[in-house]
């Protein structure tokens, strides 16, 4: 028998109103914590993959799309650019490295990206089994690709055209897996890397095949954004999808404007685009956060109302306990405990639910975007949430509980 036990018994005695208060508190905390977790995860993923890339050079179109497709590999590419022109523009003393990327095929929805060694080195990926690609049609696959598809060094597969699994297969040419990367928790985990030249090799084959197919083939072609009409016209001209560029110093930014104004290509700056993306997302996040805070406040009001009502019913009980020697502060503390217990239950359940929510979200994100989210530890901000929850619970209990100090024991006992 102690105050906590009495508080707990009181909560259990009113299961419905306790449940409602606890549920609201849980809901509010779940939403806030889920937002914090997602925010952190996305932030980490985005900044990890953008690191060191100052500019992306690609075809004209949406700069955000260019960034998303070339750095994060989550959106469709904007189109193709002639390799020669890209190389000419990047032959500039301000530019430290320029990594060419060429994409457009996939294997079971994992993107096949033509590039060179610099891309691998940039993300600090290391080959775990086998070796790095060297010749045409050799590929080194990311760790997750290996997990999901079961491919291992020595296996061969044929890629499908486009970025969806349903794309038509390049059945006549097969890639050969020569290595698997160790997990690096970067975008490389989700990619199949091959030399730039093998993408050209595949599509030269493909072009010849397609030339015979006529109209239908052409239509399909346009949808893919992959090999533009230019390619067909230019014939032998080498094309790539984009180029990831690192500046020698921040003044390199100036190049971007020059390129955008004076060439057919587009230069996008990840720092600007990602900020723009987050500010767009931010509106939604802020709204949800506001909603969650509102739910937590409503939960506080619910605690207040149910305690207020039950205190009216329990006036005699309180007077009785006072007459039996309880201190007013003791009883006040007991009532605060009821609010506190609800807050704590809400916090624990909220933490639990938000982690489950993140897990579900992560499973979906992995399926759809091949992005994995992890980290289940408690964030520093969540201790802040705990503080707010406790504050709301205690305040909501304190207001009605203050009546204890004004109670006239004798009159209350005599009234009934």
């Amino acid at each position, binding site marked *: 028998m102690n105050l906590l036990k*009495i508080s707990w018994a009181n909560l259990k005695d009113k299961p419905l109103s306790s449940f409602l208060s606890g549920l609201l508190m849980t809901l509010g905390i779940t939403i806030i914590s889920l937002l914090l977790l997602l925010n952190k995860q996305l932030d980490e993923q985005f900044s990890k993959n953008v690191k060191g890339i100052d500019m992306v050079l690609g075809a004209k179109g949406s700069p955000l799309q260019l960034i998303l497709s070339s750095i994060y590999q989550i959106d469709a590419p904007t189109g193709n650019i002639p390799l020669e022109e890209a190389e000419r523009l990047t032959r500039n003393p301000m530019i430290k490295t320029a990594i060419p990327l060429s994409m457009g095929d996939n294997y079971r929805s994992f993107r096949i990206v033509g590039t060179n060694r610099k891309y691998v080195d940039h993300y600090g990926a290391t080959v775990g089994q086998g070796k790095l690609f060297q010749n045409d049609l050799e590929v080194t696959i990311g760790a997750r690709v290996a997990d999901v598809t079961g491919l291992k060094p020595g296996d061969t597969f044929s890629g499908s055209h486009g970025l969806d699994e349903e794309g038509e297969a390049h059945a006549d040419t097969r890639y050969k897996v020569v290595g698997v990367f160790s997990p690096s928790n970067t975008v490389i985990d989700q990619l199949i890397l091959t030399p730039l030249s093998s993408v050209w090799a595949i599509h030269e084959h493909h072009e010849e095949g397609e030339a015979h197919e006529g109209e239908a083939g052409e239509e399909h072609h346009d949808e893919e954004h992959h090999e533009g009409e230019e390619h067909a016209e230019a014939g032998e001209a080498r094309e790539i999808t984009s180029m990831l560029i690192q500046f020698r110093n921040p003044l390199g930014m100036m190049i971007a404007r020059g390129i955008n104004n004076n060439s057919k290509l587009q230069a996008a700056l990840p720092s600007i685009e990602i900020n723009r993306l987050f500010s767009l997302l931010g509106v939604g996040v802020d709204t949800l956060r506001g909603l969650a805070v509102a739910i937590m406040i409503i939960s506080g009001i619910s605690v207040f109302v149910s305690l207020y009502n039950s205190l009216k019913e329990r006036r005699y009980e309180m007077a009785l306990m006072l*007459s039996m*020697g*309880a201190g007013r502060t003791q009883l006040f503390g007991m009532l605060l405990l009821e609010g506190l217990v609800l807050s704590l239950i809400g916090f624990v359940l909220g933490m639990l639910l938000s982690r489950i929510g993140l897990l579900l979200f992560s499973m979906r994100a992995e399926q759809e975007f091949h992005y994995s989210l992890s980290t289940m530890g408690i964030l520093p901000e969540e201790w802040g949430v705990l503080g707010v929850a406790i504050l709301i619970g205690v305040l909501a209990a304190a207001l009605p509980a203050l009546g204890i100090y004004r109670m006239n024991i004798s009159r209350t006992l*005599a009234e009934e």
Partner: protein
Amino acid sequence: MLQSHQLTFSYSPNKRFTFPDLRCNDREALLILGKSGKGKTTLLHLLALLLRPESGSVTIGNTDLTKLTPAETAGFRAAHVGIVFQKPHFVSSLSVMDNLLMANYLADKPQDRTRARQLADHLGFGDHLGKKTHQLSQGEQQRVSIARAVMNAPGVILADEPTSSLDDDNCARVVALLREQSEEIGASLIVVTHDQRLKDIFSNQVFL
């Protein structure tokens, strides 16, 4: 032992109570009879110092209660006074057992489950210790409140109309138990009532 001396109290200037001096030794019982509005409950609350008298004194053992601070009063009352109220009220969310133990807890005494069980068996509700108090009949509830009043073996037991809502059988039983328990722990028993059924049971009587 309980003694009162020239107790007066007023709720308002034109409603003033002056009470006769009372004295009740250990192991004795005193019946205070009076009609409604005569200040029976007021007197009981004064004796328990739930109300502060306007003048006069209440002495329990060697302690003058009117000289204690409010906090000391609460502690003293918890340890030395057991009160049985007219309607048996309990902390409804707790079991019968916990309601008994609460008397120990609020008086800062060790929680004596054995004593609670003995009292329950003796007062005839030993099978109901795990139940909530509202599941018990009126007579049973009043017996639980007697057990609660004697849990701390107080020096004084004050009972406010303990029998008014009970039938004759339960009335006789409750009064017998009250007397028996107070004698067992050597307490002074003071019963305030308008219940004429009790007149013949108590030899010491005071009329208001």
